[in-house]
């Protein structure tokens, strides 16, 4: 499996992603600068976290205009795998590759902490090796992580099994109105979604930051699971 890690000005989780795919999972990993126009035959494209373009205008808005995004769109439309984490999720929403948008957290604070999220659907390449109902514990670090879409869009996402992660408590209970659990106030406690084809996935939490025992909260069975190449 070949992995392209896309780097925009302001991206800061690119080395974490290279560590996961390259060092831990021993997959061929290439960095692709946002001015490039091709993905070097990669199977998986990663849009890592960070603050592309300093979050100017809206988070992810300027990144969608970068030349590399034409290649990313073509890759996604052809069924290629794309994973966007944190700012990467925001870029996918702004690009129209995933529906909805990430608003500012309801508590008006930048949140840097551990959260729990429940695997809701295994209908995506990123969650296919996981089990629905599993609880993943990993960090978040964002100011705009409050997932928003119109009710009709949310209904459609749920109906088609496109909600892949929801914020929950340590026992896997989802409580959308509880700010201690749904920490950023996301609609229906959504933490991550996938495209209809299951090949494009975006989520706010950072599972790539919970893959080493040294840091803790490796998440038991789930630490590296989403990043592993399909069996």
């Amino acid at each position, binding site marked *: 499996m070949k992995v392209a890690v896309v780097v925009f000005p302001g991206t800061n989780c690119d080395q974490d992603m290279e560590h996961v795919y390259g060092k831990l999972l021993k997959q061929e990993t290439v960095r692709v600068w946002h001015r490039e126009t091709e993905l070097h035959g990669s199977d998986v494209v990663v849009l890592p976290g960070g603050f592309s373009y300093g979050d100017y205008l809206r988070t992810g808005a300027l990144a969608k205009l970068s030349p590399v995004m034409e290649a990313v769109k073509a890759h996604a439309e052809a069924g290629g795998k794309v994973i966007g984490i944190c700012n990467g999720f925001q870029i996918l929403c702004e690009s129209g590759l995933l529906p*909805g948008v990430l608003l500012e957290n309801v508590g008006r604070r930048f949140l840097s902490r551990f959260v729990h999220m429940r695997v809701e659907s295994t209908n995506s390449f990123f969650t296919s090796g996981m089990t629905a109902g599993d609880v993943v514990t990993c960090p978040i670090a964002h100011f705009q992580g409050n997932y928003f879409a119109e009710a009709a869009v949310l209904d459609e996402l749920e109906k088609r099994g496109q909600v892949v992660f929801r914020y929950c408590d340590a026992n896997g209970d989802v409580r959308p109105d509880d700010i201690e659990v749904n920490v950023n106030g996301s609609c229906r406690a959504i933490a991550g979604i996938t495209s209809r084809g299951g090949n494009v996935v975006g989520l706010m939490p950072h599972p790539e930051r919970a893959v080493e025992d040294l840091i803790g909260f490796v998440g038991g069975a789930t630490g590296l699971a989403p990043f592993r190449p399909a069996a």
Partner: protein
Amino acid sequence: MKYQVLVRLKPGVLDVQGKAVENGLKDKQFDAIKNVRVGRVIELEVDGVAGAEAKARVDEVCKLLLANPVIEQYEIKEVA
């Protein structure tokens, strides 16, 4: 041609900036101030074309970048 684009959140979309401003004012006893919504004004110039064509160009960039139709609405004003 010079234009001003006013971008604001659609009614009903949570505006945490507006809420923060409102709460700040409450601390100073401006209790009469309600429903603060924060928008954004973007000024730009269009070169080489004028009138409806220039405005159409501005409308195009509003749709492409300046406003996100999921949460925002925009107005275009000609200023010179």
